[in-house]
């Protein structure tokens, strides 16, 4: 299984589209958003967590794109005639997702610390990175659900729509304080908003609120069920 993880991580990191879209883009957008016009240090920190979160969501969803591609080229079917069990393949893929979100998170945090001069305690850096990492699991599951259900092309489009929609709505791009009131209340129920909240609360020195963890856990269960259902449905065609 570690072998499979290593193979798939390697394949993901060799994907130029992934490196540019999933890692370089969030960093560039972060630097752009925080350096155009004057602003206080708070936005630099908030946007850092938001963009790290955005990159993580994109990378997590990208795992699903990989699954759709592997289905299309018959690689998953080929794995089924090796001694690997389907369970190992699915777990391996999920772990791949959890490894490939790291470059985006680390790159944006590095840009915040090294370029934008964001100052946090060592434990805060570690906690922000760790929470964003753990919190990305629901999005990996959403991506897998798409990847096992849809064709390669529709998976790409669906992932992009999920990524942009959830990111903007969840306030990863712009703070939700800029949203009209009704949209702000919707935003608080999105997984992305609560995902970012994990990081932002730590960055200002507080523990994440119970509500954030609860909402995110519910989304994780929902996306997890979606992934399982999609996988079962694909069983006959993989």
């Amino acid at each position, binding site marked *: 299984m570690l072998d499979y993880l290593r193979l798939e991580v390697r394949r993901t990191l060799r994907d130029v589209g992934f490196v540019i879209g999933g890692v370089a883009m969030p960093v560039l957008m972060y630097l752009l958003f925080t350096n155009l016009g004057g602003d206080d240090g708070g936005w630099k920190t908030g946007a850092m967590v938001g963009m790290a979160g955005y990159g993580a969501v994109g990378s997590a969803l990208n795992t699903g794109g990989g699954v759709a591609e592997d289905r299309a080229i*018959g690689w998953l079917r080929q794995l*089924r*005639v090796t001694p690997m069990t389907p369970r190992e393949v699915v777990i391996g893929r999920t772990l791949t997702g959890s490894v490939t979100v790291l470059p985006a998170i680390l790159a944006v945090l590095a840009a915040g610390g090294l370029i934008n001069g964001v100052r946090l305690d060592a434990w805060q850096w570690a906690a922000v990175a760790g929470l964003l990492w753990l919190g990305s699991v629901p999005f990996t599951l959403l991506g897998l659900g798409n990847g096992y259900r849809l064709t390669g092309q529709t998976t790409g489009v669906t992932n992009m729509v999920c990524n942009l929609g959830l990111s903007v709505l969840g306030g990863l791009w712009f703070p939700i304080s800029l949203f009209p009131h009704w949209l702000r209340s919707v935003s608080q129920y999105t997984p992305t908003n609560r995902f970012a909240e994990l990081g932002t609360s730590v960055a200002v020195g507080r523990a994440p609120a119970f509500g954030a963890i609860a909402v995110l856990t519910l989304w994780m269960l929902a996306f997890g069920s979606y992934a399982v259902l999609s996988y079962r449905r694909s069983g006959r065609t993989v």
Partner: protein
Amino acid sequence: MTQTENAAVSFTGAVKTFGTVRAVDGVDLEIAAGETVALLGRNGAGKSTTISLLLGLDEPDEGTVWLFGAPPERAVRAGRVGAMLQEGRAVPRVTVQELVSFVARRYPEPMPVARALQLAGIPELAGRRVDRLSGGQTQRVRFAVALAGNPSVIVLDEPTAALDVEARHAFWASMRSYARLGHTVLFSTHHLEEADAHADRILVIDHGRIVADGTGEQLKRAVGGSLVAFDLGGRSTAGLELLPGVRSVEVRGDRARLRSDDPDATVIALAELHAIRGLEVAPASLDDAFLALTAAPVKEAA
């Protein structure tokens, strides 16, 4: 059919339907360890479904399919099976070495990667990215993937589809060197010559059933009869089927084609009728055998 314990592959009354189509319609077959067998049929005859059943990728609706005396899934888990599936494409962003060694390590007793690449005839491609190879090279990488685990049985679904003549030859040479090591090989094809040239035994499948089973020579003999063809020159065909040796009569345009068990006697009888015009006598070919065995309407080239 007796069910032997050591059969590598054994189907008993296997049926697989998709909607209203009986893709596999009551297949009984047995393949002994060490045989090289061709599964021959036209497109849509049921070859790929048979192979899916054999590999445990599909389950039969009726009947049983066994691999080494157990459900296929168990043989697959035990690492006794290697396969080259139809329509598998290059795995992007890995090198040949990475891919083949990854698959090899899934198996309990794999062969060294270098050996697999050598058998597949691609030792020089080890460091190349799989998605940057030609079609023929990709096909041989997929062959290396199939044999990397050193499985007891290897299953190849239309392995030479989309290969040019040269790549085809190279591929079969590789396959034969693997089979010579005593492994069981089953491959599907719709090319008669491939089945005849590279298999010890040919299973002809049509409409989901095995319609013939034997060596190329046996199949030709089973269909029986040489071809005796001549121009009718306006003569009636009445009574031709009563001539000595004649089994069947077929008329195309002005030409009669007789299938005869005793072509000498048939020709003598035709001579007595003064019917010899543009006479042609030919032994049964494997093509004839195949066409006679498979029921679908035949389009004949001139």
